[in-house]
């Protein structure tokens, strides 16, 4: 699914070595946590996967496709294969839950019929059938995050990337979000979660990648959150 080979990324303005000679492989259908202190390189890695940034050295392969070699006009199509969830939800405040999710389908040119068919299904997957007409401002943080997850999934991407999805949520809601991510994973989507939520990581017993100063210092199956 994802293969990262000896990737190095330096931001020229600050000369920060965000990633140094990083190599890691994630198979299809895995659930992987990505942990590390702020500035360890988690966000940079996510950006490389989404082709927002390009590695200075090494290769990022997604489904065998070298991300660096993507031409400008093929990048949007490539991004449709990756669902993204952010800490700050990034919903459109003036549109309803339904419209927010439908937006992701409209943007990629789905037919209105297909949209009417799929959006309610995704809403029920995240447990928000009865909130379809609410605006994001009327929802709790957890509900908003579930909307953004529904939006990430609506185009049925094989890979879901979540960047601190529980960063703005209380522990109980965080549990719900993680459960939902796990369920999505069981349905066949590969899930990569960058997080600071130590207890959750410890409890869920998934594969854990630990980054420190741009290097992969630990790769543990069913690992916990240990700082070396």
């Amino acid at each position, binding site marked *: 699914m994802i293969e990262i080979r000896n990737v190095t990324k330096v931001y020229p303005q600050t000369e920060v070595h965000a990633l140094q000679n990083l190599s890691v492989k994630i198979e299809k259908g895995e659930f992987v946590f990505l942990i590390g202190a702020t500035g360890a390189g988690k966000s940079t890695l996510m950006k490389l996967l*989404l082709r927002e940034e390009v590695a200075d050295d090494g290769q990022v392969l997604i489904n065998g496709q070298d991300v660096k070699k993507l031409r400008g006009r093929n990048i*949007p199509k490539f991004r449709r294969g990756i669902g993204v969830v952010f800490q700050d939800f990034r919903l459109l405040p003036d549109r309803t839950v339904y419209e927010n999710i439908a*937006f992701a389908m409209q*943007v990629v040119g789905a037919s209105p019929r297909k949209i009417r068919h799929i959006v309610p299904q995704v809403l029920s997957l995240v447990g928000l059938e009865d909130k379809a007409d609410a605006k994001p401002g009327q929802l709790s943080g957890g509900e908003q995050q579930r909307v953004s997850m529904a939006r990430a999934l609506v185009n049925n991407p094989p890979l879901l990337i979540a960047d601190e999805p529980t960063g703005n949520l209380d522990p109980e809601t965080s549990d719900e979000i993680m459960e939902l991510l796990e369920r999505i994973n069981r349905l066949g989507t590969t899930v990569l979660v960058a997080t600071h939520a130590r207890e959750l990581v410890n409890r869920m017993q998934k594969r854990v990648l630990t980054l420190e100063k741009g290097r992969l210092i630990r790769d543990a199956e069913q690992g916990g959150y240990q700082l070396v």
Partner: protein
Amino acid sequence: MSAASIGIVAASLILLGIFQLALMNLNAWISQVEQQCEVNVYLKNDVSGTNLNRIQSELAGIPDVSAVTFFSKEERVKRTKETTYAGQEYMLEDLEKDNIVRDSYILTVTQIASTSQVASLAARVPGVDEVVNRQDLVDKIQAVSNVVRQVGLWLMLLLVLIAMFIIANTIRIGLISRSGEVDIMRFVGASNSYIRGPFMIEGIFLGILGAMLACGLTFAGYFLLLRSATTVFPGMEQPLLLSLEQIWPTLATTFLGIGIGIGFIGSGISIRKHLKV
């Protein structure tokens, strides 16, 4: 900000319009003058009688001259009264008493190219005071129109650049205020044209609105000019200025074309600079 964009597009187009109208009218005058193919030969005041016959036959002997018409000073005053100053004849009373107006011959020349040659030969005929070659007039109008073209071009270029800059800024503000939406579109995989399209259309739309405003104001202004021109110079309206029907298609196409161009390039610059896809 949108209003400012439309306004500046309209302002630059109106300026362009003024220069273009001046050029169109000057060119019309040139072709009108050229069509006449005439050389005016003014005689010295003391020439009379047999001398006139001699001068006439000498003028007729110049190659390419097809006709020689005598035009006495009395006739000239009368004709001027009837045409340019119809209804205001009193203005020419003094002219009749003094002898400012001279007797003259009008030479009709077979082709425009020969007019300067005919003029220089006519000037050598004894008794001839001055030769007014229409080509001189054409050259003068041409010189004026060249200056108008130069000045107009540079001014217009400057204003068009300003207009583009302001449109680019308007679009930039739109991009910033909708950055959340643009961001979402990017990470759900909207194509570049899907994201850029609305902003391009907005820029082009501003350009078109500016062009329409400019059309309206310029035509209104020209209409008023035509009307006042006919009251100041009665009887001369036709040769003096082109009619509205003669100018509007050219002007409207130019305005729309440039307006769309300004909008397209202006929003394009902004999108290129600020919209990372």
